[in-house]
């Protein structure tokens, strides 16, 4: 019976982030939180395997105080138990800090047979967490997986890369990152949402993990984040007769020198 741990990130929904026109700074004041898109695939994959073959799915997240908002959502998606680390250090954490904190927490709550996460987070898309956590824990890592089988302690995957697909196997514990096309995450129904309230969650105090203050200092420090502005002509044709719009478009493209 495999024991899964899924690492997930509670991110801002990038669709809600606005760019301020005066200084191009980002306004996230109206942005809601969400479970990072690809991490939902990781939760779904673990839940499906456990539902079919038995086992358990724990989830673990590290973030600011806001991560508490994620618990009901993540537990309604098929997880059995949620562990969470809420600390202000997450506000400035880079991939170095995040991996150290997650690895320390896994040493405390583990071991697990399969540690899963999404291919990258929807905000930063650093794609570093899986290989970093594996390196720190001394585990092998299989990234970019779009087919996952767990059978009697052997993990078999198909990885999908731009140049090829690759089959690989590992015996024993492994860290896996999944692609978004591995499954379609469920949309929790009322029953799952109500059931989530009864499932356990446990806060892990960062101070209990033996992570030093120096370890919480990022090696990559954000200097600035500015909105990317695309200046376009924004000429829109919406004539009742589409032929009129098409004629105007073609004449515009001719004047642009495209034909």
């Amino acid at each position, binding site marked *: 019976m495999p024991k899964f741990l899924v690492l997930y990130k509670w991110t801002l929904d990038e669709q809600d982030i606005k760019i301020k026109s005066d200084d191009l700074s980002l306004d996230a004041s109206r942005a809601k939180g969400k479970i990072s898109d690809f991490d939902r695939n990781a939760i779904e994959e673990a839940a499906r395997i456990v539902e079919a073959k038995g086992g358990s799915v724990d989830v673990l997240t590290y973030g600011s105080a806001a991560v508490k908002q994620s618990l009901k959502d993540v537990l309604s998606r098929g997880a059995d138990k949620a562990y969470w680390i809420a600390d202000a250090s997450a506000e400035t954490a880079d991939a170095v800090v995040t991996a150290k904190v997650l690895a320390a927490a896994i040493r405390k709550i583990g071991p697990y047979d399969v540690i899963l996460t999404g291919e990258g987070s929807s*905000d930063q898309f650093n794609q570093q967490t899986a290989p970093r956590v594996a390196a720190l824990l001394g585990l*092998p890592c299989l990234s970019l997986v779009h087919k996952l089988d767990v059978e009697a302690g052997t993990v078999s995957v198909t990885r999908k890369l731009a140049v090829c697909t690759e089959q690989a196997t590992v015996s024993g514990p492994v860290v896996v990152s999944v692609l978004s096309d591995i499954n379609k995450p469920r949309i929790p129904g009322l029953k799952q949402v109500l059931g989530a309230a009864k499932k356990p969650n446990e806060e892990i105090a960062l101070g209990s993990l033996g992570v030093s203050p120096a370890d919480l200092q990022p090696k990559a420090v954000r200097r600035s984040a500015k909105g*990317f502005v695309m200046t376009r002509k924004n000429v829109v044709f919406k004539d009742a007769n589409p032929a009129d719009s098409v004629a105007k478009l073609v004449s515009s493209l001719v004047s642009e020198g495209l034909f």
Partner: protein
Amino acid sequence: MTGIFLFSEDPVLAKQLLTPALALKGALDQPITALALDGATAADLAALGADTVLLLQSASGWVEGLGDAVTDLVRAATVVLVGGTQRGKHLAAHVAAKLDAGLTTDAKSLAIEDGKLVTSRILYAGLAVGVEELAFPAVATIPPRSYPTPEAAQTPGSVETVAVTDDIRVTVTGTTPTESSGVDISLANKLVSVGRGFRSKDDLPLAEGLAAKLKGEVSCTRGIAEDEHWLPIERYIGISGQTVKPDLYLAVGLSGQVQHMVGARESKIIVAINSDERAPIFEAADYGIVGDLYAVLPLLTAAITS
């Protein structure tokens, strides 16, 4: 010993990495050490400006399993540049973890300022550009085609062979090359890009007919390639797909989510056809038609013929 180290398993990308590495050499006054997996690439890198090339003798050649071996070889590094392929990004993250170093994924720019590596990269799927500074040792992955291959160096570097240990815990049991239609959409001058406004795969000839008239190619969103499997993945554009810069990008029945547009926003002219007047694609477009693509595309195709 300190230095600038570079690696890519892709020979073309490895040579491109020498261009930013030579710029860093100028700024830091430190030698360049390149790591290579085959003798021909090693010789090329030595001829193009690497002071030393380490030719790794890997039995498996599985790049992702070389993390510990590469870490040992680059332990003295100030900056490590890794080619931003999928395998390269995996390797770079492992090496950065072992070096306790920061890593910029898909760096768009690199500079040395005040004893730090300053990089820029895309955030929030393309909504924003972030600048970060990394303490040394610093690691960055560089996307393909970011830099040209440098001119041959006046004094070629030396090549040394190094035995390395693979990650024997992972067994690669099979590799199937991705079937390619031989079409590289990043080279097309005109693209007709398909989104979920198309109701069925059977309707794709509408886009193909227009692309043929334009002497261009058909591209698509991630959903069309990854979820619907209507078109091969090599044709999808976006943050995790292709980046294109055609003269004309004709977005048909796609909403223009930032994750998609980040791959197309350097197009010269962007045209949108969408039935939803409020779709974000119109803000990202030079010209747009609000209308049903099933009515508009045949008219547009006919108009271009005449």
